[in-house]
């Protein structure tokens, strides 16, 4: 059948007995009405045809000239078909006939939001190569960037390309990588060093670990390129000893690269010597700070020192040293291969390329994702992350670890880039995203992160060493019911001072969790202090453990979960809690779907 010259489109509706019985005439009326309504009745012709032969899936609508085959169409689908197919030219996927073969019912990987919305640069070999096979890495363009740099680029050209890319430090600071390299190249003081910071310490962060484990050669290659650019012949990878698999695979990668001569003297016969050594750290958070890290490699106590001189001038053993994060190095090779302009075309004005995030906490797709800069937090959490489990509400996302801040519900449209995150009181950090639902107490969260910083403070500066301790004590008072008027102001004041008088990044940012939760969740602090109640029912000292009779549905879920037999319940009876037996474990609260316990 050919399309009528007077119509741009035809709907062929089956009017066989079976399709009429399943409602094709009603579908016809609905489509006609919809076309009239949108003034498209002169563009689209509806033709009733004889039995199509596929009665089981009727009513059937075939759209010509596209030849699209819709099945089981109902009158209520008419607006959708007209709007999507006729006006926008898009096929209505839901109504398409699907082959019952299994492989077609398994969705395409890029049709799944988790994968489809990601853009992989640093994680380009994710799941595709055997981490312990150097040949696998080479098959995916491995060491081609190093070859290109050594064969056809001067160190200055390499630096220029990285500058052009707009790549910024992925460890949290966001310092432009190209500038760092340029600075380090300037000094004529040899030997120089290039160091990879794999001391990933934020609670909930595992980006670097995953890169080191899954694609160790990309780190080695990026380091070699940086060594060539700055004039260093020796590289160190500082990895925490808690990452045994990463260390093992990196070591295997180093051995294999040496075997191929990709590390060692005279790489590719270019005259460039470069070798790498792993330095396992003991896992102190402060050793992620550049100068502390370098002291640690030297065998000294890991403590930040005053800058200047910057590491680029006098770093490891007082020699010029370049330090980049794992993810930064993993981004270098594609930049050299595809050019800085290519990288700069991705992302936002001030933040180029992509960023890897570790999604954890109250989120369905706990995992590792890489998205273009400028992606909104909403996309990250709801589309890629799959939203909050158990139909709970999104409350806040903690970005940037113990130095970062909380971004509350309502601000989830914020773009993820260095500046936008700082504007809302968080920071990019290394990329750990801890998602919190409405069962999370923000005061308790702030206390958790403060406790982390107290434990990890190196002790050099008084404001950080003592101030954080005082802060933690005050927060403990608040969650245990001893909060007083003035506490919030005290915390804000103290936080401000710790930030402005501490020397290193750890101290400067350690009060961020407290300050940002006060900024966005002041009401929760007030509830703890003045009403002696914890709205999220987390702080056990502020929970009465009593059943709200009007809300209780008598379902007995609290009774079933209670490990000490403190819940008294019988069928069709409101539950009660025997406080003499209650250990305040909160099982009843998490089990109750109706919020009937306070």
């Amino acid at each position, binding site marked *: 059948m050919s399309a009528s010259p007077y119509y741009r489109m035809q709907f062929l509706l089956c009017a066989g007995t079976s399709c009429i019985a399943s409602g094709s005439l009603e579908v016809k009326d609905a489509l006609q009405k919809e076309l009239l309504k949108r003034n498209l009745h002169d563009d689209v012709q509806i033709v009733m045809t004889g039995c199509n032969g596929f009665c089981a899936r009727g009513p059937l609508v075939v759209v010509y000239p596209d030849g699209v085959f819709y099945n089981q169409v109902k009158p209520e689908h008419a607006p959708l078909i007209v709007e999507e197919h006729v006006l926008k030219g898009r096929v209505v996927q839901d109504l398409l006939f699907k082959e019952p073969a299994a492989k077609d019912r398994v969705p395409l990987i890029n049709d799944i939001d988790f994968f489809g919305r990601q853009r992989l640069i640093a994680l380009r070999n994710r799941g595709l190569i055997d981490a312990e096979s150097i040949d696998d890495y080479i098959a995916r*363009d491995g060491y081609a960037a190093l070859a290109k740099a050594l064969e056809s680029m001067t160190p200055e050209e390499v630096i220029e390309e990285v500058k052009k890319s707009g790549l910024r430090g992925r460890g949290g600071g966001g310092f432009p990588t190209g500038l760092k390299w340029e600075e380090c190249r300037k000094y004529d003081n040899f030997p120089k060093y290039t160091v990879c910071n794999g001391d990933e310490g934020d609670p909930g962060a595992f980006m670097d670990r995953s890169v080191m484990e899954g694609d160790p050669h990309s780190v080695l290659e990026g380091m070699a390129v940086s060594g060539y650019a700055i004039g260093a012949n020796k590289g160190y990878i500082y990895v925490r000893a808690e990452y045994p698999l990463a260390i093992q695979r990196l070591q295997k990668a180093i051995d294999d690269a040496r075997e191929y001569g990709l590390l060692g003297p005279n790489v*590719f016969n270019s005259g460039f010597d470069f070798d790498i050594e792993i330095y396992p750290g003991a896992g102190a958070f402060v050793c992620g700070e550049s100068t502390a890290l370098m002291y640690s490699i030297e065998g000294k106590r890991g403590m930040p020192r005053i800058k200047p001189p910057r590491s680029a001038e006098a770093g490891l053993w007082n020699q010029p040293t370049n330090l980049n994060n794992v993810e930064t190095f993993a981004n270098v090779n594609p930049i050299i291969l595809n050019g800085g302009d290519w990288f700069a075309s991705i992302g936002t004005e001030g933040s180029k390329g992509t960023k890897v995030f570790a999604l954890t906490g109250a989120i369905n797709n706990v995992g590792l994702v890489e998205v273009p800069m400028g992606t909104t937090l909403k996309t990250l959490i709801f589309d890629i992350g799959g939203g909050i489990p158990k139909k709970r509400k999104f409350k806040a996302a903690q970005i940037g670890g113990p130095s970062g801040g909380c971004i509350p519900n309502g601000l989830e449209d914020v773009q993820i880039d260095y500046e936008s995150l700082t504007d809302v009181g968080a920071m990019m950090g290394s990329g750990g995203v801890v998602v919190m639902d409405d069962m999370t107490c923000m005061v308790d969260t702030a206390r958790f992160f403060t406790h982390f910083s107290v434990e990890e403070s190196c002790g050099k500066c008084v404001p950080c060493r003592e101030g954080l301790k005082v802060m933690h004590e005050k927060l403990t008072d608040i969650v245990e019911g001893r909060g007083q008027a003035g506490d919030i102001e005290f915390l804000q004041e103290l936080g401000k001072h710790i930030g402005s008088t501490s020397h290193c990044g750890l101290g400067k940012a350690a009060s961020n969790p407290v300050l940002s939760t006060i900024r966005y969740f002041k009401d929760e602090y007030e509830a703890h202090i003045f009403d002696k109640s914890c709205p999220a029912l987390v702080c056990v000292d502020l929970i009465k453990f009593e059943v709200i009779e009007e809300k209780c549905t008598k379902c007995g879920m609290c009774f079933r979960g209670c490990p000490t037999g403190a819940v008294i319940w019988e069928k069709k009876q409101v539950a009660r809690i025997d406080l003499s037996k209650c250990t305040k474990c909160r099982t009843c609260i998490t089990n109750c779907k109706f919020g009937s316990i306070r």
Partner: protein
Amino acid sequence: MAKISIQDLKKIKEEQKARMVLREGAQRAKITVHMGTCGIAAGARDIMVLFRDIIGERGLDDIILTNSGCAGLCAQEPMITVEVAGQSPIKYVKLDSAKARRIFDEHVMAGNPVEDFALARGSETTAQ
């Protein structure tokens, strides 16, 4: 192997690339077990051992069994990717020994993807 030149690098790339693509007739299938820390913690080693044993017991020499790092979706580990020659690869999630055994028999050996445990087909497009 001795030190390689840039020409050698290109040669290795082409050779290994060819080896990573399954050729019908030569190899039946390739199984990739995702073995990052997350996968191992969730039991990926057991899955790996299971496949290794089945392949050994049955004396199969046309199946490539390999491992890789974290596939990103840590929440649904252990994960594997199965690619049967001539078909698009399928990612399977939340596996245990029983599921893995079924996948081996139905998908790897018979070529029919096990829809029940499959997450997605195809491989991720990357920036390059």
